[in-house]
């Protein structure tokens, strides 16, 4: 009879420890109450039909004690839980990327190197893995019990989660947000492998090229390259080097060009217009590119580093409005 799931990630043991801590406190608390009631029920059972006990109205000291002490104990729960949650909130900078798209009722996984899987995820142990999650339809949730991680996958945006697998093995992957008919069929397996095995596995797949290559193909196919010339200013902002940089918008705001920004620019281009450019030029690609395709485009755009120039002309201020520098890493910095 299994009792605890295997602890196969870097945070799993700590989650389990916290769980044990709460369990022990709860068992003690419950036992105390049960025992006290049992003892009172027996010791003070009614012995004659007319007995009338003396009233005890209350005790301020007791009330304070049994309010404050439990609350302080609960604060320890809160604190430890918040620590774990906080530590798990942002992936480490060197995390490897994986992309998972949930759709009724399957998980479609893509690796930057180009492999694609359905309902399977392969990861190396000992390396942080950042999963970028997208949904093509309703809310799903990506749940790996052995790693003690779960994150909802909400349509219309990206969600990310990360973990570091620590034990090789095959572990359940479940969809954990009810999503319709085959919600309970939206399950799969996560395979954690030794790094060398993982390298072997990586090289054995991906006949379509890496995600960046697939993204480049899409970039040509969908006509993006006609306006977004790679190294020349056209009617549209240059995309080389834009990923991760700060972008100045026409309404005065500035935003970081991250995954969500690029996705929005593809699906709803008029939502944010770059300063110095006109609206209504880029058409929307809503409904024409799948979530997977968008992820491929993002990986491609990410791969477009500024060539030749020593990592960004960092020197002095760049004035906004000089087109050729508008999208370098210093764009928007005042």
């Amino acid at each position, binding site marked *: 009879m299994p009792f605890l799931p295997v602890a196969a990630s870097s945070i799993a043991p700590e989650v389990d420890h916290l769980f044990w801590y709460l369990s022990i406190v709860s068992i003690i608390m419950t036992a105390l109450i049960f025992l006290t009631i049992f003892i009172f029920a027996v010791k003070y059972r009614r012995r004659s039909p007319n007995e009338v006990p003396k009233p005890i109205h209350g005790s301020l000291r007791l009330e304070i004690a049994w309010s404050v002490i439990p609350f302080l104990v609960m604060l320890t729960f809160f604190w430890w839980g918040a620590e774990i949650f906080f530590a798990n909130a942002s992936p480490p900078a060197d995390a490897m990327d994986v992309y998972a798209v949930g759709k009724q009722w399957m998980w479609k996984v893509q690796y930057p190197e180009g492999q694609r899987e359905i309902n399977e995820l392969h990861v190396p142990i000992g390396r942080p893995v950042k999963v970028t999650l997208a949904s093509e339809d309703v809310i799903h949730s990506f749940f790996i019990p052995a790693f003690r991680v779960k994150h909802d996958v909400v349509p219309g945006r990206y969600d990310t989660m990360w973990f570091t697998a620590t034990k090789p093995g095959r572990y359940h992957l479940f969809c954990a947000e009810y999503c319709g008919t085959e919600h309970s069929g939206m399950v799969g397996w996560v395979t954690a492998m030794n790094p060398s095995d993982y390298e072997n596995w990586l090289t054995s797949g991906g006949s379509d090229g890496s995600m960046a290559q697939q993204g480049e193909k899409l970039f040509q196919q969908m006509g993006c390259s006609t306006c977004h010339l790679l190294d020349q200013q056209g009617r549209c902002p240059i995309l080389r080097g834009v990923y991760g940089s700060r972008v100045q918008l026409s309404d005065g705001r500035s935003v970081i060009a991250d995954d969500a920004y690029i996705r929005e620019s593809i699906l*709803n281009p*008029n*939502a944010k217009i770059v300063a110095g450019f006109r*609206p209504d030029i880029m058409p929307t690609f809503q409904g024409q590119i799948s979530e997977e395709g968008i992820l491929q485009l993002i990986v491609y755009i990410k791969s477009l580093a500024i060539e030749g120039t020593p990592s960004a002309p960092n020197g002095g201020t760049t004035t906004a409005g000089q087109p050729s520098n508008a999208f370098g890493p210093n764009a928007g910095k005042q």
Partner: protein
Amino acid sequence: MADTHAVATEHEHSPHLRHHFDDMAQQFDSATLGMWVFLLTEIMFFGGMFCAYSVYRSMYPEAFASTSQYMNPKFGAFNTAILIVSSLSMALAVRAARLGQRKALQLLLVITMIFGLAFLGVKAFEYHEHWVDMKVPLFAGHWDYSQAPQFARQAQILFCFYFFMTGFHALHMIVGVGLLTTILVMAHKGTFSPEYFTPVEISGLYWHFVDIVWIFLFPLLYLIGHTRQLI
């Protein structure tokens, strides 16, 4: 409920005293508290919509601002004015009831109802205008935002809120007019006196509330993009 007077000897009380109450004062207090509590639930009901609207407006400020040009703030302002005046006439009606002035009460009720109906008439006209202008996303074929296509999707959200919020409000207005009709009939029959005018009082409370909801709706739906022009 079997009718036994727990209140002892005399039968000297208003025929309007319900027998689970001890006296008219308790009945009046209970009725007004009840209406206040009900209005609290209405605040929460409309509040839900205001909240959702605010969330989307903060997400899409420009799209929302672009919708103002399809609203007619003159009509909105006119409607606001009528409702405010109708609240005045309603308050005066309650006062007339309190003072036992039957004729004034009936006249003021009628005035209030006329303003209410005028409000509804203007809203009907506005809805018709939106229908013709293709600004009704609720029905296929009556939504067209090609004048500003970059905002079409989010403008649709605003217009949905416009119709739902003003629609629920109009529904409450219709109920209000119905209430006042009932009160008018009762007033005509001479039901009310300085000792008993509770229905007038609580209808007044309801009417004021419906008015106040509109006062919040008007700037939020009509005046979003108009700030500069007004200053």
